[in-house]
């Protein structure tokens, strides 16, 4: 068990990066995914078209390609700095958040859109009938009910995102998977190392899943 004491702070640091990647990407993808869903149900054809194209393209491109694109194309070719002024760790972390958010937003959008479809049309009609505008109908009546009905599917998206953060290792972000690769190269204890990291991810995702399962039941809309 020396390996644990040798690497303990490094393991914790790496998982902390994983947690930060997950939380930030989760937050941004929730916001961007909600906007995409709003576009997909909007009465403006151009917005609907943009939403549909975005989701169908992004969903069908492997995440690794998106993350590598962020790093190679945005940073190396176009010189996007994302406010990281020469700090490469910060730059690639931010690019990874960008790629993960852009990718996950497509799944958030689709989960939310299926939630919107569970809200009876009468809800939106009654809201329009008292004089609420399209945006108000969406943000006050439809989306809150849609969110409540898709806590389960969104939990799955969040768990997938947690695991997908490992792709950030491809552009050198020092999260859990990168440290695992490094440890496997340096130490001869493949099984133990894999087990440690597998356990690390389960510790992150299992309680999240249980907690959000409980939340989902609690906020469900009774009809």
């Amino acid at each position, binding site marked *: 068990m020396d390996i644990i004491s040798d690497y303990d702070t490094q393991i914790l640091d790496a998982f902390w990066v994983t947690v930060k990647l997950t939380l930030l990407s989760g937050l941004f993808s929730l916001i961007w995914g909600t906007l995409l869903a709003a576009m997909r149900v909007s009465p403006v054809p151009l917005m609907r078209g943009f939403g549909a194209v975005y989701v169908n393209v992004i969903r069908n491109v492997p995440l690794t390609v998106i993350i590598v694109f962020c790093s190679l194309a945005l940073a190396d070719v176009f010189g996007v700095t994302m406010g990281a002024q020469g700090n490469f760790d910060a730059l690639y972390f931010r690019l990874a958040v960008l790629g993960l958010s852009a990718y996950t937003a497509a799944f958030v959008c689709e989960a939310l859109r299926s939630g919107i479809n569970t809200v009876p049309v009468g809800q939106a*009609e009654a809201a329009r*009938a008292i004089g609420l*505008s399209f945006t108000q109908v969406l943000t006050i009546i439809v989306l809150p009910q849609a969110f409540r009905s898709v806590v389960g599917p969104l939990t799955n998206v969040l768990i997938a995102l947690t695991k997908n953060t490992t792709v950030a290792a491809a552009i050198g972000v020092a999260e859990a998977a990168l440290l695992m690769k490094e440890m496997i190269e340096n130490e001869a204890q493949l099984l133990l190392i894999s087990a440690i990291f597998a356990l690390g991810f389960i510790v992150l995702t299992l309680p999240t899943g249980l907690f959000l399962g409980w939340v989902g039941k609690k906020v469900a809309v009774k009809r």
Partner: protein
Amino acid sequence: MTEVSMAKDAVPAAGEPLVVLDNVNKHFGALHVLQDIDLTIARGEVVVVIGPSGSGKSTLCRAINRLEPIDSGRITLDGKPLPAEGRELAKLRADVGMVFQSFNLFAHKTVLQNVTLGQVKVRKKDKAAAETSARALLDRVGVGNQADKYPAQLSGGQQQRVAIARALAMEPKVMLFDEPTSALDPEMINEVLEVMQQLARDGMTMVVVTHEMGFARSAANRVVFMADGQIVEETTPDQFFTNPRSDRAKDFLSKILHH
């Protein structure tokens, strides 16, 4: 009935047209659901719309607050034509109360929130004032003690009365009711009709799609009989129920009376 005429007298310029439909046409694909509809509803008047299923009664109601756009013709409210889109249209809808067959209370909001929402978000009233008037309205429709419950916890009759309070909270110029009691268990129909009757007595302008003859006879000034997208007959409730002129109306009445 004396109360009705008293209430009517209290309304300034009674008899002045409030809602006017002029040569209104509407299609759903090939189906001509509203055919050359001309209808004038005076301020303070209660009009009952009756007719067989599929005759276009709901579409007529929905056209009046433009939940359903029309193909041709003109609809005016208080002298102004219905706006086509955007803010103006939303404002118009706030002036037209609508009560649906299936209640459509906001399922994730409490009864009180259902009634305050439009006042705060559309009428821009402050929250305390909105709550005060919401509670008064809930008392008026007899569900004051249910204010903090969610719609799913109420009976159908209670939900429909909350829906009426929600519409009244906007202080509408006219109220539209689309078969407000037909989704209710029989024992709850009267509690809703009583609220509507009271509203009629208070001088509210109302368009009511219903087959409740008792309500039509006691509260309506006029019955409009629709069939196949047309207004076939337009007369007083007494005249309509005892002595219908058209064959369509006779046929329809014999069916609803004998079943």
